């Protein structure tokens, strides 16, 4: 027996192999080993030229006896430094494609249960592409073994749509067992897992990505998958023709750099073939800006109206438009807002909730490219902006005083109102008269104006606001003209 070599996959057991100096038929061999003087020798018979025995702390003595031949017995002393440590070839549990986002999700087991606690593991993940399995990238991934089998997960985004050509993934592992003094090496590569491209599907054809949404400035690869016997004449992005790259016999691609914003119906990517045409549409827009100047108020204590400035238009419309939702943290109530993309003002209504004065709003904004949010903490009793007073009428009139009444839609029972009456007399003298009163529920309010001049035409108008914590005046009511009666004969 000669060339005894030992290799371990798990730092516990090692497989030793040997061969014989002279050729011949396989012989029955007595294989014995002992790790040190204190432990009894362990022997067993084998016809194999390999045996699995424990990894020694320091060294192990192996005796291989082959009865009936010259030089029948050979003794080997193996030190840990002579033992190679090569982790078991990893096994990919799943490779899941995310076609819309061109992402691959890889899951594998770290096989940690076979190792002692706390070893550092380094994984190499290799992505290959096309029929020729060209390497696209090789990525390092670090993990810690915890003496349990942990399923590791890793995502990768391809720079070309997964449909364009087949993508393959392989993985291997290196374990940094610092206490182990023998030579350490990478495991073998796992078998490759494949996500077949459309160019491998019988009848598979089309332009990809199909109807994608990307950010302005992106570099995008589009491919045209066609039948084997079809010849492509050209591929255009918008109105511009691009140089094609061949991915496989049934797949050609173009690379568009720094894509500019598309119009509302998207940019067409057209693949012209000898006997037809295929195409896709890509929508190039912006992620939503963080909403600016978020402000919320109520005009009636029934609905809270929030407004904001949307910032830069996203350039995305219809099904891809930017969507808005108003989430209120205290009540956990969420409202989605109907917003017309074309007009600049953004408004969203949120119901006033019973027994809740303070509202902790988060305005969420999202579209297929990104999302943003703004928040606002507001005490709604300090954000009262009443509606325009209506039905301003005179309910009492003498030579020096007039009583006015008006109506305001809304429920203000919880607050006091401050109303301001503008008094314009014929001599274009304008006075403002303030009056405050308890708020009512969709009710009328009155005020008495004294100290007027007899037989004088006056023009009245009224506006209101919250008396405590002023926020905003309502608009002025419609004007009302009234002449005081003549003074009684003195």
């Amino acid at each position, binding site marked *: 027996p000669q060339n005894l070599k030992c290799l371990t996959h798990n730092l516990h057991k090692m497989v030793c192999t040997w061969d014989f100096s002279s050729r011949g038929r396989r012989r029955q061999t007595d294989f014995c080993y002992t790790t040190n003087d204190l432990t009894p020798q362990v022997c067993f018979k084998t016809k194999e030229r390999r045996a699995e025995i424990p990894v020694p702390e320091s060294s192990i003595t192996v005796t291989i006896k082959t009865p009936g031949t010259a030089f029948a017995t050979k003794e080997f002393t193996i030190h840990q430094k002579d033992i190679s440590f090569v982790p078991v070839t990893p096994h990919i549990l799943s490779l899941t494609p995310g076609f819309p986002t061109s992402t691959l999700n890889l899951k594998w087991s770290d096989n940690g249960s076979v190792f002692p606690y706390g070893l550092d593991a380094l994984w190499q993940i290799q992505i290959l592409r096309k029929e020729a399995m060209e390497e696209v990238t090789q990525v390092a991934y670090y993990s810690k073994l915890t003496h349990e089998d942990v399923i590791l997960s890793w995502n990768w985004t391809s720079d070309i749509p997964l449909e364009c050509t087949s993508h393959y993934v392989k993985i291997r592992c290196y374990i940094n067992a610092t206490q182990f003094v023998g030579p350490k090496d990478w495991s073998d590569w796992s078998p490759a897992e494949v996500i077949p491209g459309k160019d491998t599907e019988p009848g598979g054809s089309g332009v990809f990505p199909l109807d994608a949404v990307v950010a302005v400035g992106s570099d995008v690869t589009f491919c045209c998958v066609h039948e084997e016997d079809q010849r492509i004449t050209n591929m255009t992005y918008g109105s511009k023709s691009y140089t094609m790259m061949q991915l496989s016999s049934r797949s050609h691609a173009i690379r568009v750099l720094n894509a500019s914003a598309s119009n509302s119906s998207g940019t067409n990517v057209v693949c012209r073939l000898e006997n037809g045409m295929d195409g896709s549409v890509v929508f190039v827009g912006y992620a939503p800006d963080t909403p600016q100047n978020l402000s919320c108020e109520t005009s009636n204590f029934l609905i809270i109206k929030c407004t904001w400035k949307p910032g830069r238009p996203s350039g995305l*419309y219809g*099904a891809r438009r930017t969507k808005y939702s108003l989430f209120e943290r205290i009540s956990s109530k969420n409202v989605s807002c109907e917003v017309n993309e074309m007009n600049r003002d953004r408004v969203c209504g949120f119901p006033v909730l019973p027994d809740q004065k303070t509202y902790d709003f988060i305005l969420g904004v999202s579209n297929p490219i990104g999302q943003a949010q703004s928040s606002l903490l507001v005490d709604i009793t300090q954000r009262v902006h009443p509606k325009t007073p209506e039905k301003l009428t005179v309910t009492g009139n003498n030579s020096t005083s007039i009583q006015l009444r008006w109506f305001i839609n809304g429920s203000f029972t919880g607050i006091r109102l401050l109303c301001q009456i503008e008094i314009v007399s014929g001599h274009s003298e304008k006075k403002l008269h303030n009056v405050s009163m308890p708020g009512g529920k969709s009710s009328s309010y009155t005020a008495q104006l004294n100290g007027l001049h007899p037989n004088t035409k006056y023009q009245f108008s009224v506006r209101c606001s919250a008396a405590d914590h002023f926020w905003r005046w309502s608009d002025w009511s419609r004007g009302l003209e009234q002449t005081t009666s003549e003074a009684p004969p003195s």
Partner: protein
Amino acid sequence: MAAPDSPSTALRRRDLCSRGIRLAGKMRADVVDLLDTYVEQQGLDASASVAAVEGVPLAAVERWDEQTGTQRLLENLAAYRAFRALLAQMLEEQREQLGEADAGLGRALAAVLLQVSAFAYHLEELLRLESRGVPSEEEDGPPPLPRLSLFEQKLRGLGVLRELAQWAVRSARDLRQLAKPSPATGTGPGLAESP
């Protein structure tokens, strides 16, 4: 041999036909304008050749001369009912894809849809004039349209509008044919006879 028209029926038919011809002419002009807007807005190549689109009735017809009046009306009616469904689908897709953007194209599409509906009704009136049963919508109602990718939707829209423009021309010719007085009696022949 069907009995020739009464003078009032012939007069009524000629009136309906001439109004139909004017409607077809207006529709064609609007469809051509819409086509230009559509091509530009959808970023298409005006010269793009579009394969026959499933569900779109072809205006070209063999042996046009040999068709009877009833055949002409029935074929026209089936075509415009199909266009009505196709245009309604285009309008829905337009709203879904573009929302409020490019409302102009949406309005133009809706206007043409209105004209197509009106023209279909006009054809039904002509058929009723001849006490011909008007086929109910289910009989030749359009099959549900397959869900297409956005680019295919764009091409289908192009195909629909191009074919509709052709149909408007054919319809005007068909109605002129129907409006021709019969050489013998000077009144219009029954629809069944008119070549």
